[in-house]
């Protein structure tokens, strides 16, 4: 059974159709890249998978581990192992990062019927992961993402990914706003989490990111559909020739 199966998905926002019948199959252990020009519907796909309100699925379905993902609330999806690394992580003043991490982790564990993490275990784990991602302890005491640079916000997303151990990671434009050093740290963090039990969907506009996170499959999206799929060579091809050919095809 595939980990994620998107079948002929049609999605509208305010009565305007954004996805026109998108299909995608992702198995455990695979890394898929979804590339495409601005406005092709990449972020819409990530939002619909995570359960963001405001999108109307008019047709098609999404199965996660064989179950109807669209019937689940966003928190239920999270507890089942769906993780979206946001393109623009929000700032939450007044909620300390540590408090947030612990509340979230324990909410997910509770939903799965697991016991809450003990404080020392939790702290140890957070410190370890934070260190590997070059996140200073001081950042963890601040409000969630408050005063963080673009790179720090992205690293904070990867910190959460490492902590929550999801089975499906959707990385939405992880490279946007990052310089090359920040990108390398973030990509190293992601690569460390690659595992036979986990799949990743890397959404990006540029091929550059895929030099660091090398995908098994590349899909090109244009105007709300996957118009071409291939291996990592497809990304290089795109780099050379651009998206125009696919826009014509779509």
């Amino acid at each position, binding site marked *: 059974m595939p980990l994620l199966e998107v079948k002929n998905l049609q999605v509208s926002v305010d009565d305007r159709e954004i996805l026109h019948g998108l299909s995608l199959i992702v198995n455990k252990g695979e890394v898929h890249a979804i590339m495409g020009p601005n406005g092709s519907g990449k972020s819409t796909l990530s939002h619909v998978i995570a359960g963001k309100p405001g999108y109307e699925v008019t047709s098609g379905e999404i199965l996660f581990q064989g179950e109807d993902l669209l019937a689940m609330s*966003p*928190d239920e999806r*999270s507890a089942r192992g769906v993780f*979206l690394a946001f393109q623009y992580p*929000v700032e939450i003043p*007044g909620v300390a990062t540590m408090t947030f991490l612990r509340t979230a982790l324990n909410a*997910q564990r509770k*939903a799965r019927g697991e016991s809450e993490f003990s404080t020392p275990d939790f702290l140890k784990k957070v410190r370890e992961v934070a260190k590997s991602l070059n996140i200073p302890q001081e950042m963890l005491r601040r409000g969630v993402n408050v005063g963080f640079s673009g790179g720090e916000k992205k690293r904070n997303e990867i910190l959460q990914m490492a902590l*929550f151990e999801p089975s499906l990671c959707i990385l939405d434009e992880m490279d946007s706003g990052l310089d090359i050093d920040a990108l390398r740290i973030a990509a190293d963090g992601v690569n460390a989490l690659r595992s036979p039990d986990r799949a990743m969907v890397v959404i990006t506009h540029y091929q550059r990111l895929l030099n660091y996170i090398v995908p098994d499959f590349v899909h090109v999206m244009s105007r709300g559909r996957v118009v071409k799929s291939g291996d990592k060579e497809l990304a290089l091809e795109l780099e050379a020739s651009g998206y125009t050919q696919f826009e014509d095809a779509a």
Partner: protein
Amino acid sequence: MNVALAKTGTERAPSDIFAVARDRLPGAGRIAEARRQAFEAYERAGLPHRRIEEWKYTDLRVLMREVLPLAPEPDAAVLKRAAAALKLHAIAGVRRLVLVDGVFAPKLSETADLEQGLGIRTLRDVLEAGDSAHQAQLLTPDNSDAMVALNSAMMTDGVVIEVADNAVLTKPLHIVHIASGATPFAMFTRSLLKIGRAASATLVESYIAANGAKAYQVHDSLVVSIGDGARLDHVRLVEDDRDAFNISSAMVALGEKAHFSTFGLTSGSNLSRYQPVITFAGEDSRVEANGVNLLNGRQHADTTLLLDHAVPNCASREIFRAVIDDRGHSVFQGRIIVRPQAQKTDAKMMTRALLLSDEAEADNKPELEIFADDVTCGHGATAGALDESLLFYLRARGLSEKEAQALLIQAFVGEAIESIANDGLRELAISAAERWLAVRG
């Protein structure tokens, strides 16, 4: 009291309340005369209503309708129920002073082994046994507000606390108002806290109900003077029964280089009004007056604050937060007066309301009246819903809708609560907020 008013059968004549209670009201001579005048002032005005500017958003004629008769003296059974309620709201490490149905309860209070420089008496005792200085101070409140006038006329008991010059009280004082009434009645209390020069104290006031007490009325007032170089930390928690009414006033005067830090949290009562008047009477003093309203159902809570910068070089800060669900209604009116001589005044006020439902209502009315030209004053007011993008972020991380809301609500009120300097008191406010969130479910 020969006031001839046409009344329906169900309406109680306001004068009856005073006439019936008169024998139980302490103090003769000057005190009795002051009561009589105060009651006349109240009767002339009647219950405040929306055509009186200060009461525009809290029309007591509509919301409270009448003043209930004075509560009977608590008997042994009542005191037992009060003791049970007290247990649930006990705070560790404080000196408890308990008023049950508006009457001081010595057996539930801790008046033995007073620290050096601390004096505690009851209002009844002070009004009956003389002590003209304290009496004069107790009679200072201005009866131009009808509800203050009513309280001046009807005050039955309370505590009179004196902290001597240079005395530093390490143990907070905790005045607990407990209502027991299975049948609705009113209690009228007034307390006095006098803090000497260079002294410091911490005061907590709680308003709670014994099991079964419902639509009672609390009419309370607090008179405070803070001496030169003195400090008062004050926390006020209104956790009355949700059918109850709480009408309270405070009159606080600060000397030179004094510091007053006050925080109020209202999560209880059906209708509450708190009207503190804080006056800077000496230079180089500082006030932080913060508060949080947590309302749901049909609760109505009104904080009407007046800060009077009467002298130069003083600073005041107000942070007020309201969280309103269902058909709750929160009112914050903050008036800052900077008098002509009060140069170098630094006054800032910020009020924010969080509306959790379409029918929730917030009225924020900051007013600055500045008559001096060399001052720094500012105010801001906002009202809005929880940010959907923050809620989604939290839900995408596994928090349920209620959990996500709770975390954001805690953050929202946190800024006002964080201002409480004393760790224990801050925890108290946080746990009161958590209780509200827990009940919310």
